[in-house]
């Protein structure tokens, strides 16, 4: 890599300006980038579609997930094109297997959703860093331009969505008017999956096509952001200026050197000899302050110095304290995990775990408390707005999902089968003479119970007798509906018109009922 060969002006830029440069770079090499991208991705897309023809959603998801793998190719092309060494299509594809090898799994799994994907890619691919070195490098690089890279991804997502929707609408607008398509949304949503598969694959294809335009720009923008960051970190621009200076001044420097040489040759040699002892070595002074003195006295200078030093070490003069605090760990210690420190670390972890275990009970209590509060709140809200819920859920179609439990009471009558006597007809005949109302009521109850439990009619409290009759007619059972009509008419006469049923009706109704229940039992 020779900075002087770079095809862009190298100078520190703001993140946005760097992104702009990326767009420009992608535009300059647009043909190559888009062609290589299309050649790489479209066959893959076709393959995925064929494999997952029944599940177009999964096909496009897999295609989308593999994006980091494709992005290595444009970066390769861009990194070479930047220094004037634009590879041909064939060269680029020849290099592709080598490009895919390093850290592909990481790119496709836990780093897939990184918002600074295109900014991080050069570290991996161009610098070839891996593991802690890579993350350390990323921390350094990300100190300034990571925000720009994140925004690039966010904007890119929206741009993809907008372009995709735009292409779909364009496709829809271009349908000739003669093709009359009655595309109501409901039918689109409800259509059998088979009929619309091609349409979903078509929209997937539109997505693959728009990526041809957008992805090279995305990769180029990440690359220029990376270049910009390195320019700032490594002072490439200053280096470049120095190199230019050197290039410009090489001839002048030789002339100057020659001139200096000539001048030095003219100088007198004596002067050069005098310089040999110009700097004497410092010698130990026997009478200096450090020398031992007063040796004959009880307190020698040595002893005095010793005690002075002791005093100076004691509290009034020296205050030592040990302060323990958290700091970001040095990466060096992590890199060199000797057996001892690892053991200590594990022991510390164990201690920490024990400490947490003692806190578990408290944590559990608070967790239970919080959950209980949440449930109570939800229950309170539901209770507070129960009327609204009852009104609106009816319209949302929720009751259809609810299992339809037949009511045990209808029009105030017990209609559960258990509440009816074994032999309904016999009971009716017995009651008919003294309690005609009870007899007819029992028969009507028995009919409703049959309708509810045997014919599974969705009867509700709000149904009137005539509505029940209409439902019975919907069953399309001639005998049953004739019987129901007769019984309902006399029941209404008795209940609302207070007219007693004629005597000869008793046998007709009871016989009909016996016949019906026998038929129902057989069925």
């Amino acid at each position, binding site marked *: 890599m020779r900075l002087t060969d770079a095809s862009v002006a190298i100078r520190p830029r703001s993140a946005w300006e760097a992104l702009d440069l990326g767009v420009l770079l992608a535009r300059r090499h647009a043909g190559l980038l888009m062609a290589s991208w299309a050649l790489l991705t479209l066959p893959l897309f076709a393959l995925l579609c064929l494999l997952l023809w029944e599940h177009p959603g999964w096909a496009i998801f897999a295609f989308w997930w593999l994006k980091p793998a494709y992005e290595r190719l444009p970066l390769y092309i861009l990194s070479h094109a930047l220094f004037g060494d634009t590879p041909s299509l064939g060269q680029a594809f020849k290099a592709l297997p080598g490009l895919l090898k390093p850290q592909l799994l990481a790119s496709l799994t836990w780093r897939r959703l990184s918002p600074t994907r295109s900014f991080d890619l050069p570290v991996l691919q161009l610098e070839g860093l891996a593991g802690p070195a890579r993350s350390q490098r990323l921390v350094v690089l990300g100190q300034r331009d990571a925000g720009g890279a994140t925004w690039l991804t966010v904007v890119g997502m929206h741009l993809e969505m907008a372009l995709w929707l735009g292409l779909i609408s364009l496709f829809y607008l271009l349908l000739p008017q003669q093709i009359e398509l009655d595309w109501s949304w409901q039918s689109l949503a409800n259509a059998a999956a088979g009929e619309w598969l091609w349409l979903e694959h078509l929209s997937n294809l539109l997505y693959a096509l728009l990526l041809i335009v957008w992805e090279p720009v995305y990769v180029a923008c990440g690359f220029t952001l990376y270049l910009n960051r390195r320019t700032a970190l490594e002072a490439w621009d200053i280096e470049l200026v120095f190199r230019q200076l050197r290039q410009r001044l090489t001839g002048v420097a030789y002339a100057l050197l020659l001139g200096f040489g000539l001048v030095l040759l003219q100088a007198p040699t004596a002067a050069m000899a005098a310089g040999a002892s110009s700097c004497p070595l410092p010698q130990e002074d026997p009478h200096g302050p450090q020398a031992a003195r007063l040796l004959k006295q009880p307190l020698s200078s040595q002893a005095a110095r010793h005690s002075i030093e002791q005093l100076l070490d004691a509290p009034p003069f020296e205050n030592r304290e040990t302060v323990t605090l958290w700091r970001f760990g040095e990466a060096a210690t992590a890199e060199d995990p000797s057996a001892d420190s690892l053991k200590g670390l594990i022991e510390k972890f164990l201690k920490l775990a024990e400490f947490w275990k003692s806190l578990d009970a408290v944590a559990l209590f608070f967790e239970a408390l919080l959950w209980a509060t949440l449930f109570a709140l939800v229950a309170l809200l539901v209770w507070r707005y129960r*009327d609204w819920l009852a009104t609106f859920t009816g319209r949302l179609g929720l009751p259809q999902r609810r299992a339809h439990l037949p009511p045990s009471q209808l029009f105030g009558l017990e209609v559960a089968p258990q509440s009816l006597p074994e032999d309904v007809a016999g009971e009716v005949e017995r009651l008919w003479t003294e309690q005609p109302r009870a007899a007819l009521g029992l028969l009507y109850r028995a009919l409703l119970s049959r309708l509810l439990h045997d014919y599974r009619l969705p009867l509700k409290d709000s149904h009137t*007798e005539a509505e029940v009759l209409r439902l019975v007619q919907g069953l399309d059972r001639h005998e049953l509906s004739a019987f129901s009509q007769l019984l309902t008419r006399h029941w209404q006469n008795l209940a609302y018109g207070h007219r007693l049923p004629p005597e000869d009706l008793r046998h007709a109704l009871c016989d009909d009922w016996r016949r019906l229940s026998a038929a129902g039992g057989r069925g």
Partner: protein
Amino acid sequence: MSEYTPEQPSTLTSAPPAPAQAAANPAVQRQRASQLAQALRLELQKALIGQSAVIDDVLTALIAGGHVLVEGVPGLGKTLLVRALARCFGGEFARIQFTPDLMPSDVTGHAVYDLASEQFKLRKGPVFTNLLLADEINRAPAKTQAALLEVMQERQVTLEGRALAVPLPFMVLATQNPIEQEGTYPLPEAELDRFMLKLRMDYPEQAEELSMVRQVARSTRADMLDVTPLRTLLQAKDLLTLQKIASDLPLDEQVLDYAVRLARATRSWPGLALGAGPRASIALVRGGRSRALLRGGDFVLPDDIKGCALAVLRHRVRLAPELDIEGLSVDQVLQQLLDQVPAPRL
């Protein structure tokens, strides 16, 4: 059925001269009354094709002695229905076309100075009639609409300090157009409440529209149905008798309770901001009675009440603003209400 309809008028017109006999046999009289009502329905269905539900409701109000407000887009035959009814009904018929400059005195009448007798003379307005068609009632301002308040409730008009009774039976049939809002004045609540039923006219079914177009294309007046061939089936006193018979129909306590519960449910229903008043309960019961008569029944069923509940309630309640914003109509909410209020218990 149309073969023996010509006999119907004579049977009933001959019934009143012998009240003692009729009273002795109320069942026979009731049967005759319901036959007459059904003949009237058939006759109206000849004129107005494809709107049998609306015809039933208008007859319900006619028999119950209530007023009707008919709402529908132009061209569905609102006015035609009323004209056909007037044609079949032997009493007086008057029509007021409500316009923005109509004054209350144009409706009720006013005093004029007579030069010959040098005195003020009362000149009665068009309300002094049996059947009053208030066409496009919401085109007149509120003060003119208010001229109808007294006559609709009390069947009398106060002119120059004197209360003058209008001839009985008296029925107002008003029409209005729901889509045009410009230059119209929505009816005030008090006025709306006085209408027993508010009917919605909808487009006819395809087969019915086909037969209607065929019939109109044959008629001499190229663009409208003719009501002249309809026979007069009903005189004013016949109608009074009908109303009397209907109001005497037996009504079980449970059914009465059902009607009152329906009206009361609108007051606490969460989707409704304003519920219906006691007039609604009364209208429900009267409507149920006249529907029972129309049906040919001898007593009132809960079905009769439920059948006219929508028409009785829809103009007496106001939808909650939240539901209004969501685009729900009053009819949908009332239908939910009808689906949840339990039918009578026995």
